[in-house]
């Protein structure tokens, strides 16, 4: 078997860099630990450059595929890691111990996700998913003296392990039915079978359930609000984007590659989940007072929108999902960055505390509004383009009801997103001291803003970059 290690260079580079971070951590004095964040950012940026410039192909007998699809998701993982780390510097310094390990674990989790998006068989996929997830269990409980963080870690771990077991059981059944773990071979085997049996349906339900846990799609979302609220906010930001994107990458790899011929069976399942996610996420968000919980429910709803893209098992579907996740990455991490910046000063995540933010920091307030509008899907923000693509994928297949539902629930989302804007702009708080934003955070915010607006206004370059992604499937 020929092994071409150069295809793995982004993953291997980042892995080595993570170990470098752990090593440098030993020799860094406690007050200089922030430099590790910058070291990590450098590594992530370099990895992104290597990813873009490294060549494509497959190795390890098809277990590892470096293709445009994987590359697109790698950029999303790396982008969210960069933004997360950049926004975390002050927060970590103020609230967390073991700073070096914090950044190292984020890098290792990213490595896991990058292996995941490149995996060509179920074993590699499962193992790299666990690499990404176990790092996140630890990160969720990282604020050890904080009760909420501990509770978040516990809930995430128990439900995560249970979902992992369900996923595993589903994979074992799929393996039994097809006799192989390689995604291509499963597709071949399934297309030869005249009908699919009931066990196959149980296995896809279990696989969907296991991966939906990562996505936080209803009814596998229950961990999401609690963990988002309890985990350190940078971890929440990372969880809300990178972890979801990882779940999506796995879902697309499995369903669009191996199970494409049986889409009649699983599209209704995903639609049911999507509809529930849109309704529950948007409706329950209305009653939240903690901004992290609100964003948790909003992220549940966002997954509902993204799943709409799965209806059309087509090139448009892959492109639109990647585009939306990209838009979602900038907007959602951006929103969490504002939350972090505000928490660093005020120590509060209560929406009421945001009253008068427009006067305390116009920059934070307007950034928040831009991110929220992108999440609602208002032009010219990126979210609008993304939503438009997703919905046109559904229209293409004649699923009008889900588009109507998506649009209606978007209106509800407007209500709770705008209630944040209302607090910031039309209320006055007790405290009107200016909120200072550190330079690193400001740069990261500007990047997220630029991403949100540029994708919305000038989409074509992004589209042409990701248009090759669907060639891995069709």
């Amino acid at each position, binding site marked *: 078997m020929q092994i071409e290690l150069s295809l793995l260079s982004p993953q291997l580079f980042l892995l080595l860099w993570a170990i470098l971070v752990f090593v440098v951590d030993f020799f860094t004095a406690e007050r200089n630990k922030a430099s590790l964040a910058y070291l990590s950012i450098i590594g992530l940026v370099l990895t992104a450059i290597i990813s873009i410039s490294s060549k494509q192909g497959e190795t390890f007998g098809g277990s590892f595929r470096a293709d445009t699809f994987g590359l697109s998701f790698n950029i999303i993982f790396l982008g969210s890691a960069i933004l997360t780390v950049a926004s975390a510097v002050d927060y970590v310094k103020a609230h967390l111990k073991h700073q070096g390990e914090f950044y190292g674990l984020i890098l290792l989790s990213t490595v896991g996700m990058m292996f995941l998006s490149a995996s060509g068989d179920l074993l590699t996929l499962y193992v790299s998913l666990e690499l990404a997830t176990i790092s996140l269990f630890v990160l969720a409980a990282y604020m050890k003296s904080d009760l909420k963080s501990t509770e978040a870690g516990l809930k995430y771990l128990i*439900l995560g392990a249970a979902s992992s077991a369900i996923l595993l059981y589903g994979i074992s059944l799929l393996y039994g039915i097809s006799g192989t773990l390689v995604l291509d071979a499963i597709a071949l085997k399934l297309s030869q079978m005249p009908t699919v049996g009931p066990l196959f349906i*149980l296995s896809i*339900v279990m696989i969907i359930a296991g991966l939906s846990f990562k996505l936080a799609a209803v009814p596998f979302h*229950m961990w999401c609000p609690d963990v988002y609220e309890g985990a350190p906010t940078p971890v929440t930001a990372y969880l809300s984007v990178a972890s979801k994107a990882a779940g999506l990458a796995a879902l697309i790899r499995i369903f669009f590659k191996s199970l494409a011929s049986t889409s009649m069976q699983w599209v209704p399942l995903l639609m049911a989940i999507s509809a529930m996610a849109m309704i529950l996420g948007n*409706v*329950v968000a209305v009653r939240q007072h903690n901004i992290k919980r609100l964003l948790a429910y909003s992220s549940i709803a966002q997954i509902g929108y993204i799943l709409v893209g799965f209806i059309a098992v087509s090139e448009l579907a892959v492109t639109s999902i990647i585009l939306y996740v990209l838009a979602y990455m900038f907007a959602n991490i951006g929103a969490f960055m504002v939350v972090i910046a505000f928490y660093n000063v005020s120590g509060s995540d209560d929406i009421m505390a945001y009253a008068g933010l427009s006067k305390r920091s116009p920059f934070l307030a307007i950034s928040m509004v831009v991110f929220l509008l992108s999440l609602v899907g208002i*032009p010219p923000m990126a979210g609008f383009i993304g939503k438009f693509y997703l*919905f*046109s994928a559904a229209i293409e297949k004649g699923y009008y009801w889900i588009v109507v539902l998506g649009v209606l629930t978007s209106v509800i989302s407007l209500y709770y997103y705008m209630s944040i804007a209302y607090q910031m702009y039309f209320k006055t708080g007790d405290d009107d001291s200016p909120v200072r934003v550190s330079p690193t955070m400001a740069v990261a915010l500007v990047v997220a803003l630029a991403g949100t607006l540029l994708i919305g206004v000038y989409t074509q370059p992004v589209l042409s970059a990701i248009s090759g992604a669907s060639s891995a499937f069709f």
Partner: protein
Amino acid sequence: MIKYSYIIAFLPLLSYVLIVFFFSKREKTASGIAITAVVSSFVLSLIALFETLADHGPHIFEYEWIVIPGLKLPLSIFFDPLTAVMLMVVTIVSSCVHIYSLGYMHGDPRFSRFYAYLSLFTFSMLGLVLSGSFFVTFIFWELVGLTSYLLIGFWFEKKVASDAGKKAFITTKIGDLGFLAGLLVLYWAAGTLNYSEVYHQIEENQIPAIILTAAGILIFCGAIGKSAQFPLHVWLPDAMEGPTPVSALIHAATMVAAGVYLTARIMSIIVVSHTAAMTIAYIGAITAFMAASIGLVQNDIKRVLAYSTVSQLGYMIMALGVSGYTAGTFHLMTHAFFKALLFLGAGSVIHAAHTNDIQQMGGLAKKMPITSKTFFIASLSIAGIFPLSGFWSKDEIFASIYHEGHYFLLALAVLVAGMTAFYMFRLCFLTFTGEARDYHVYEHAHESPKTMTYPLIFLAFLSIFAGWVGMPWLEHGYSSFVYFEHPHHAAANYVLMIVGTIAALSGIFLAYQMYYKRAIDPVKMGARFKPVYTFIYNKWYFDELYMGTVIKFAYWFMEVLYRFDQGVIDWFVNFVGRFGMFNSRVWQTFDVYVVDGAVNGAGFMTRWFAGGLRKIQTGAVQNYAFVIFLGVVLLMLFKMI
């Protein structure tokens, strides 16, 4: 110029960026940049207009924007005579408002930001007009909504203002949902959202009529929201809490006109689908009448103008609904000028009097000669008095309704014209003439600075002459420039002209008697004037009866019995007053309980539902696990059974 017409839109955007990033602290520079940008846009639009006069087009330019397999969305410009006219309207009114705001907003702590928002708004509006596809139109449409939200809520310290901003945003958003759904339907059927391609397919009968009807009505929902048509009109009167120049810009000339513009853009659907056409026409008619009747009894100067705007927009929509493409867009243009003038004049009055209540004004003409004269000119124009602008466009509307044979709508239109004249002159007389009713207000009143009065004079000029381009005797007038499919050049219908003028004059005369001469006062109702006015009132009476619905008839009948012994005049004056009050109360009740109720009710239901759903989140991790497995089992059952 047409080829580079995007520059027209981008100049205000450039101004916005410059102000926000570089000149937010320097007020003079900021306003200078904004005014320069919008005036340059106006000059460029003028050049483009002349080019269009030479070659009607449509000129289409495409710029690649989003292209992937299965979906192509170019950024395109669709430049036809209507575009040229809209560009003129937007840039002229916007320029006036920019200049006027120098005086009106003087000393406001967020002066630069106001100019930044004005620029952004102008950019969005120009983009909306220039765009060559429904998709891009929708994007600018939303941007217009967003910036108008910022402008209405500009004085966000006032709770009413920020609430009004929200109400405007959310109410129009409801209409936008329909718009978006319509676009999806259209895209699904036609495979494109470009104006030219969609029109082409409709002409070739490639799209089934039923789908066109659905798409047309859904897209029109967007116009209902933005142009404040029944039943989504509720936001516009509230939006008067914004600064008055904003009202002039947004609620007179541009944003609310966007709905009319959009309706004109779907004219090819209207001519194919009778259902869609009649829906549009009757919604316009209902709006026109309802808003006019409410306008009769309002005392806030800006609210009268707001209801008047709603009513006039209904007029335009009604005209478009009966395929009066030329008429609707013509009235859109003339209305933009005189209504902007009215709002700016009202702003001038408020600036001087520091109150919005016309009952506290009176006699201001002596103190504010320019404002009062221009206000009278605009009122004459909106009332449709020969030979001012409003006369020609209103006549064109009558003619097109008459041409299509909708006599009921025609009668309604004439009635509304009379009502319009009445409430406008009621406003004029109460504000500018007679004795000062509040000396405190009167003493402090003064004429506004030149930055405010010059735009008034300029707009007064336009209010008189802009309509002359549409005189029916002109060989190459408006109707041979902006038309649908082929020029529709109707001969002058003198009967209609006279009817319209009589309606207007009757309204003015009634107002004159009631509010200037105080001849008819509900309190001092005497028999003195009985013989003079019976005739006039009886004519009105027939109009009303002709219009009447069952409720009105019942009300009239009750009134007859109740007022039997009080004489005809007394009875009739009361009838008119009561009817107006009753009518407006009915509509206001409708607003408060039905429309607002529906909006609030939806919110309440959501919150209640959310409260219930939220309780699933018990906090106990094993309950969560239970939900997960319940989900797994249910999904399995869902697929297995």
